[in-house]
């Protein structure tokens, strides 16, 4: 399926105007946020791998807006949008990208590992396929406790080849767990196209042999994605059956920031860009009189402003203190009174009273921490060294 869906679903009726406008505004916010994140990466404000979902916003917003507040959402390393759509502040997401204490994972996780428990955004995961069993486990807990929450699990077409896919489908079907698996088919797993990595390219059918029925939505269409996800969630919630939804979409940018994109043609990208989910939905809202042209511009300006504020917030946020390195390795309590009570190399008695100070005492001298902080300072942020960028191919 290298082409956009040949027969996009018949146009469904728009939701209430304020709902439709909110969907558009959220897609725009995610787009502007990620564009800016890319710029911050080029300025070496953001490190590691940065995977953008540009082009996939309708899949993200359409599906997440089908969730109730008490449902769980779990995603991959490509999940800035999933955090934002759940209501995590762009400030906290940007601060995470900057590796700062106010980041939604306190600077520990970075782009690939966003998390916001309070909004039941149960995380981005860096191991392809690692989140599938975890999602089923969340559904198990909901079912076990007699709650009617559903878990929505997002993963990629490439992840559908991981052993966890089949194993999780089977168990979820066997135990009738309330989970919706959404395979975000953006046509590629890194540089390998769908037909080169999966024998079955009709991904909605890939769960059938395990007892998980499939559905498909046009992932470039926020409305269709919403409609189909609503039905899938209903089945999971009411009929106690897992469902696999394939969202057919496309990522407009490279797999990560350092991707020469030699595995696809410019023409293919252009063809998909014509179906830009934000443009298409915005046009429709204007055409149907739900949105004035100037309001559309205002939505965009507000998103840009919001992202500016997020960058300023992230830049002002502190780096995690050196003596916080060992925080949260363990839950402290009866068994583990301090991190060093499980580290026999510490010279002095193993008691929990002076955790932080002990951490400090063990930290290396030599200025590596200070140097890294200095390099991240606003005035010294420059371009990423070419060599580093080259080495960060994934």
């Amino acid at each position, binding site marked *: 399926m290298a082409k956009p869906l040949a027969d996009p679903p018949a146009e469904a009726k728009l939701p209430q105007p304020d709902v439709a406008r909110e969907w558009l505004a959220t897609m725009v916010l995610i787009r502007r946020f990620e564009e800016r994140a890319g710029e911050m990466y080029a300025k070496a404000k953001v490190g590691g791998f940065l995977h953008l979902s540009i082009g996939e916003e309708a899949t993200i917003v359409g599906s997440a807006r089908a969730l109730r507040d008490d449902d769980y959402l779990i995603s991959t390393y490509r999940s800035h949008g999933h955090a934002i759509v759940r209501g995590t502040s762009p400030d906290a997401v940007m601060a995470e990208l900057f590796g700062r204490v106010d980041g939604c994972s306190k600077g520990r996780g970075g782009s690939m590992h966003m998390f916001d428990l309070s909004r039941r955004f149960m995380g981005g995961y860096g191991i392809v396929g690692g989140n599938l069993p975890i999602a089923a486990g969340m559904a198990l807990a909901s079912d076990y406790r007699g709650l009617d929450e559903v878990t929505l699990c997002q993963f990629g077409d490439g992840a559908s080849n991981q052993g966890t896919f089949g194993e999780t489908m089977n168990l979820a079907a066997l135990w009738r767990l309330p989970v919706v698996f959404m395979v975000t088919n953006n046509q590629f797993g890194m540089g390998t196209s769908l037909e080169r990595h999966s024998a079955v390219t009709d991904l909605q059918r890939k769960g059938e042999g395990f007892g998980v029925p499939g559905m498909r939505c046009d992932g470039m269409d926020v409305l269709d994605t919403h409609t189909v996800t609503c039905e899938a969630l209903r089945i999971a919630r009411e009929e106690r059956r897992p469902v696999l939804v394939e969202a057919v979409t496309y990522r407009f940018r490279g797999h990560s920031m350092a991707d020469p994109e030699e595995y696809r043609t410019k023409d293919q990208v252009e063809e998909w860009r014509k179906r830009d989910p934000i443009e298409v939905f915005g046009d429709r809202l204007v055409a149907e009189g739900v949105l004035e042209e100037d309001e559309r511009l205002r939505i965009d300006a507000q998103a840009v402003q919001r992202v500016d504020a997020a960058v300023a917030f992230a830049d002002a946020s502190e780096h995690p203190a050196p003596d916080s390195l060992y925080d949260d390795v363990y839950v402290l309590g009866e068994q583990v009174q301090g991190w060093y009570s499980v580290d026999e190399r510490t010279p002095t008695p193993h008691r929990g009273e002076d955790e932080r100070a002990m951490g400090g005492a063990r930290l290396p001298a030599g200025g590596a921490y200070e140097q*890294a902080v200095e390099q991240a300072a606003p005035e010294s942020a420059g371009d990423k060294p070419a060599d580093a960028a080259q080495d960060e191919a994934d």
Partner: protein
Amino acid sequence: MAVLRYREALNAALREEMARDENVMLMGEDIGVFNGAFKVTAGLLEEFGEKRVRDTPISENTIVGMGVGAAMTGLRPVVELMTINFSLLAMDQIVNHAAAIHYMFGGQVKVPLVVRMPQGAGHQLGPTHSHSFEALFLHVPGLLVAVPTTAADAKGLLKAAIRDDNPVVFIEHEYLYGQRGDVPDDDDCTLRFGEAAIRREGGDVTIVGISRMALTSQRAATVLAEEHEIEAEVIDPRTLRPLDLDKILASVRKTNRCVIVEEGWPHGGVGANLAALVQEQAFDDLDAPVMRVTGADVPMPYSKPLEQIAFPHEPQVVDAVLATFRDL
């Protein structure tokens, strides 16, 4: 001799061995059309075709397992895993199968498989992409384990690994891929596993540096000489199984002090194992306890300053060496 980057030296080893033996074939995620996540396999698909350079789906345990099966029946597969953390998904095939098969079937069948992967911190890849797991593989009887530091060693050891009949876990380093070094052009220049390299001679203390830490140790040795009048002998073991313990012990007998530097976690680490061996076999020659310098005992954080203090740099090595002189 040619000056090559470490990644280019690995590429040359693969190319030469594929040209030499048609049973050598490559499997891995994005090694073909994409040219490899770290470009080690660049150009090989073009040169050898899709039969011998296979892009695989994201299925680590299964591609390693297929490597095992193919190796048992006549091929010499080289499987690339994008990052050492992903080898954990293939641990079943590596430990329960590749390592055990020759033994559990009474020596009837061999598993000439190479599983290559990079490790290491420093690129802010966070808690699922940045670790150093050589100790996990060192733990397993039946596996050979290589941890090359220089471009020449990368080439010579990879060629040797491909030609050997044992399963080899070949651990590269993300930081080292871009480093240049002199590399012999000779197609038949392989290195022997179990031969350590002495990177710097010295009579005052033995520093054993694993993988990238061999370089960190060399820089620390320069500081020790310039600022503390301590002449360190720096040893790069190059392979951990087999390990050139003789060379390490000979050095310790000369210097009477030993510091082991690794990037991985301290508990059950390479240093823990080596310190035990050194004290068992050279206790009377030691003037101070064997010291370890290791990565911090934490999952790797994303934050750059935190990451920087979570793996060793020269100052920690210098401190550890000075500590061995403290009682004098």
